[in-house]
């Protein structure tokens, strides 16, 4: 990666290899802080004796305080409820008797699928499904064995229920009474897990453990951390992405009330004051000469053009090749091709980026809402000049993650400030800082082609994806095609014998990052829109057309059939128009139908119907809320989501320029969760990608206009007339909305 990218990521150019990342793990058992969850009085620590640690996720104190450590970050997706439920099910304890705390950095918390202690890829439950039930069963077995030993009876005669172990004679021990003994026993290698038919907690709509703290203001997010003597910092960053300060005149700023420090860093200029408002005022008084770096003339139009040129000039690396798509296209009776585009997007979490650091002689305490505890530890260690194992990461609640908090660019400045002052420092990015210095969802240009054979069947399908490569910056090195850029394409379920997916990397000069559903959003939009195009060419109903391509895919057929039926497919109300989308992602199958009307040349979305098969569910109510959440997120993207850049400067600075869905714009959302015996799939991201194609397909049904570039409302009112009957040729350089070819 270019060094200019490194400049934008922190106080010092920091690069990690995957090996460093894995090697930075601490052993389990570091300091754990409670999350201010309002615990029942009996759960408050009142015993003088330390709790026994039964495994990496469970502590039981003599007073029966049961604490579950959760190693995934709670950012709304419900892991502080779902993961403890898995342990509690096998431990035989009620969920509301358990205190929840964030796990420290530790080897035990390594998520194999994410190659680290990482909350992402919607795999928290998939990762924990067997692991945490096993941990709960092991702990229960050890507790029972300890009690049986005290009684001198066979453990098989004993029973654990509701936190109490009993024997045939009617004797009883609470878990707390034998926890210390149990912790000294060997961990049983083999434990039997309950069959689903015996689940008492899994599959029920148990209340979220974090709700009480989130309705009375006591939930502690990163921005809410308060430490004795803490100061507040504001970071001035180069208006041009990737730029840096050449010189700073802090004469005026230094005289402002409350100012304690002005510190030039590679990433910007940090101002620390007694209060945040003072830091902001002093930041305005700084005179910084910014070196814009290499992006002084960068614009989103040029970015798009570079992606288009690369698409036209490079065949790409093969990610999936069934049969021979090029040969099949060559012999096809009819072909169709189009170019689709998606823009840069901002994560726009409600809680702007922030970090609190307390650097002392013995190391650094880091309080941060992060999805990457190990990377956070490593970033702080570099900034503090200490070994990683001297950084204790305290994970707070995250005020939205969406992948933004997989990056650590907001950490080093707080550490540097605390290191310089010897006091705790909390650095808060303003909304404007956050929106103009995001690690943006990358743009993509994708050419998609298909061929029909003489019988009218789809015989060839070819997708060429061109986009920057997030993983090259985040988790290098990447060999071959990174799975993160070809999602929803390599596993596309349609039964087409000749299927080719290729990828070409094209960097754009700025940092891009993982954002909720990552490349599913782009690829599902392209594929599901294009399948609709093919249905129209074949003069078939889009639902029937898809079902014909899914003959051997019963789970896909079931979600599609369910969504279509619930949406009244084929018989929309007068003035209403329907659009479909289908996807497999995160081991979940999902279908959506959007119902829209056309109001003054723009769509009005009335209803989104969604059917989901995500395998077995730990907590269906949380699953449903995540599906609703993904739909709202996806609808904002579909209608308005777009970051533009002029002369290296992001043009959207706040929620006026970067529009997201509001309460009064909500469609009705209908979610149908299908029962399943399959292993759990992911649910946090999977609903996002289908909204844009479903709405755009409904728009086509309403207007006959095909939307090949998002967002749907980008300049649409003004450009509607020009776009509607465009050139319609196959010139790859023309605007994508009109770039389609037929032969």
């Amino acid at each position: 990666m270019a060094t200019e990218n490194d400049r934008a990521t922190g106080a010092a150019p920091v690069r990690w290899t995957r090996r460093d990342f894995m090697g930075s793990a601490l052993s389990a058992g570091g300091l754990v802080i409670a999350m201010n969850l309002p615990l029942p009085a009996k759960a408050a620590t009142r015993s003088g004796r330390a709790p026994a640690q039964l495994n990496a996720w469970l502590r039981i104190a003599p007073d029966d305080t049961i604490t579950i450590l959760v190693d995934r970050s709670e950012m709304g997706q419900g892991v502080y409820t779902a993961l403890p439920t898995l342990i509690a099910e096998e431990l035989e304890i009620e969920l509301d008797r358990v205190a929840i705390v964030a796990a420290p950095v530790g080897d035990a918390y390594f998520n194999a699928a994410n190659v680290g202690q990482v909350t992402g890829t919607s795999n928290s439950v998939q990762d924990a499904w067997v692991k945490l039930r096993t941990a709960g069963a092991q702990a229960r077995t050890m507790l029972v064995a300890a009690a049986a030993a005290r009684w001198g009876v066979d453990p098989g005669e004993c029973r654990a229920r509701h936190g109490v172990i009993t024997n045939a004679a009617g004797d009883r021990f609470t878990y707390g009474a034998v926890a210390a003994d149990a912790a000294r026993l060997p961990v049983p290698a083999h434990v039997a897990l309950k069959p689903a038919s015996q689940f008492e907690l899994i599959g029920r709509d148990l209340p979220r453990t974090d709700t009480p703290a989130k309705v009375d203001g006591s939930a502690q997010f990163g921005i809410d951390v308060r430490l004795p003597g803490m100061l507040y910092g504001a970071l001035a960053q180069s208006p041009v992405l990737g730029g840096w300060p050449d010189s700073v005149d802090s004469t005026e700023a230094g005289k402002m009330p409350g100012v304690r420090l002005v510190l030039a860093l590679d990433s910007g200029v940090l101002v620390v004051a007694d209060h945040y408002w003072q830091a902001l005022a002093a930041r305005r008084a700084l005179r910084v000469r910014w070196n814009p770096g290499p992006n002084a003339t960068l614009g989103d139009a040029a970015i798009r053009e570079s992606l288009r040129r690369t698409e036209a000039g490079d065949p790409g690396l093969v990610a999936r090749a069934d049969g021979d798509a090029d040969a099949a296209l060559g012999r096809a009776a009819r072909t169709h091709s189009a170019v689709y585009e998606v823009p840069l997007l901002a994560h726009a979490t409600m809680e702007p980026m922030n970090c609190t650091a307390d650097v002392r002689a013995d190391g650094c305490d880091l309080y941060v809402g992060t999805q990457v505890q190990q990377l956070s530890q490593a970033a702080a260690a570099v900034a503090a000049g200490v070994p990683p194992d001297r950084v204790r990461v305290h994970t707070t609640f995250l005020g939205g993650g969406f992948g933004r908090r997989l990056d650590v660019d907001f950490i080093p400045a707080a550490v540097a400030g605390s290191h310089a002052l010897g006091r705790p420092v909390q650095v808060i990015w303003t909304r404007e800082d956050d929106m103009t210095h995001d690690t943006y969802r990358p743009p993509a240009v994708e050419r998609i082609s298909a061929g029909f054979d003489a019988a009218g069947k789809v015989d060839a399908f070819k997708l060429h994806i061109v986009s920057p490569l997030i993983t090259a910056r985040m988790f290098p090195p990447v060999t071959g095609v990174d799975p993160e850029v070809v999602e929803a394409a390599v596993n596309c379920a349609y039964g087409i014998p000749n299927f080719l997916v290729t990828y070409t990397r094209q960097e754009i000069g700025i940092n891009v990052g993982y954002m909720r559903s990552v490349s599913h959003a782009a690829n599902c939009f392209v594929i599901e829109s294009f399948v609709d195009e093919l249905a129209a060419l074949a003069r078939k109903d889009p639902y029937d057309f898809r079902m014909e391509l899914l003959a051997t895919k019963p789970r896909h057929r079931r979600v599609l059939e369910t969504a279509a039926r619930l949406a009244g497919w084929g018989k929309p109300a007068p003035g209403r128009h329907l659009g479909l989308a289908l996807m497999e992602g995160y081991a979940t199958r999902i279908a959506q139908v959007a119902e829209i009307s056309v109001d003054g040349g723009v769509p009005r979305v009335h209803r989104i119907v969604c059917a989901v098969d995500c395998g077995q569910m730990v907590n269906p109510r949380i699953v449903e809320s995540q599906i609703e959440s993904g739909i709202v997120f996806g609808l904002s993207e579909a209608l308005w989501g777009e970051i533009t850049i002029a002369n290296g400067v992001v043009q959207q600075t706040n929620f006026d320029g970067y529009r997201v869905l509001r309460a009064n714009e909500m469609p009705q959302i209908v979610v149908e969760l299908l029962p399943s015996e399959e292993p759990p799939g992911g649910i946090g991201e999977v609903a996002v990608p289908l909204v844009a194609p479903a709405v755009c397909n409904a728009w086509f049904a309403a207007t006959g206009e095909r939307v090949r570039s998002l967002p749907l409302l980008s300049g649409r009112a003004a450009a509607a007339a020009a776009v509607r009957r465009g050139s319609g040729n196959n010139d790859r350089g023309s605007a994508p909305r009109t770039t389609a070819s037929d032969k």
Partner: protein
Amino acid sequence: MVEIQVNGRTLRVDAAPDTPLLWVLRDHLNLTGTKYGCGRALCGACTVHLDGVAVRSCVLPVGDVGRRAVTTIEGLAPDRSDPVQRAWIELDVPQCGYCQSGQIMAAAALLRLHPAPSDADIDAAMAGNLCRCGTYARIRHAVHRAAELARGEG
């Protein structure tokens, strides 16, 4: 020094009068339940009550508060007993939760004006409170439920 009434107490704060009430609450008084989201009254995360009316504390200079009573999420009700909080718990509204203090304060102010709000009343009152987790449908449901609870239709 500025004197303000917050959650039933009269407090003296050493802050410049142009300091937004939001930062006085958060940084001077450690009332961190009120959130910073945008700084420009665009998102509603900072919503508090001023004499019972919902206002955006991020654009309200503390010097302009005067004698009006400030109520924050911490002062809404003891033990999460406000009907809005009870409804939020019953329906498990929050996801990430960051915007929810503002949502709850906006809803509580709405119910004071409209004890039985229509969907349109709710949309109008809540349109200024953004939620990136997309809890809007549950919020609307919960506002109706809170209205029932407030009327004693538990």
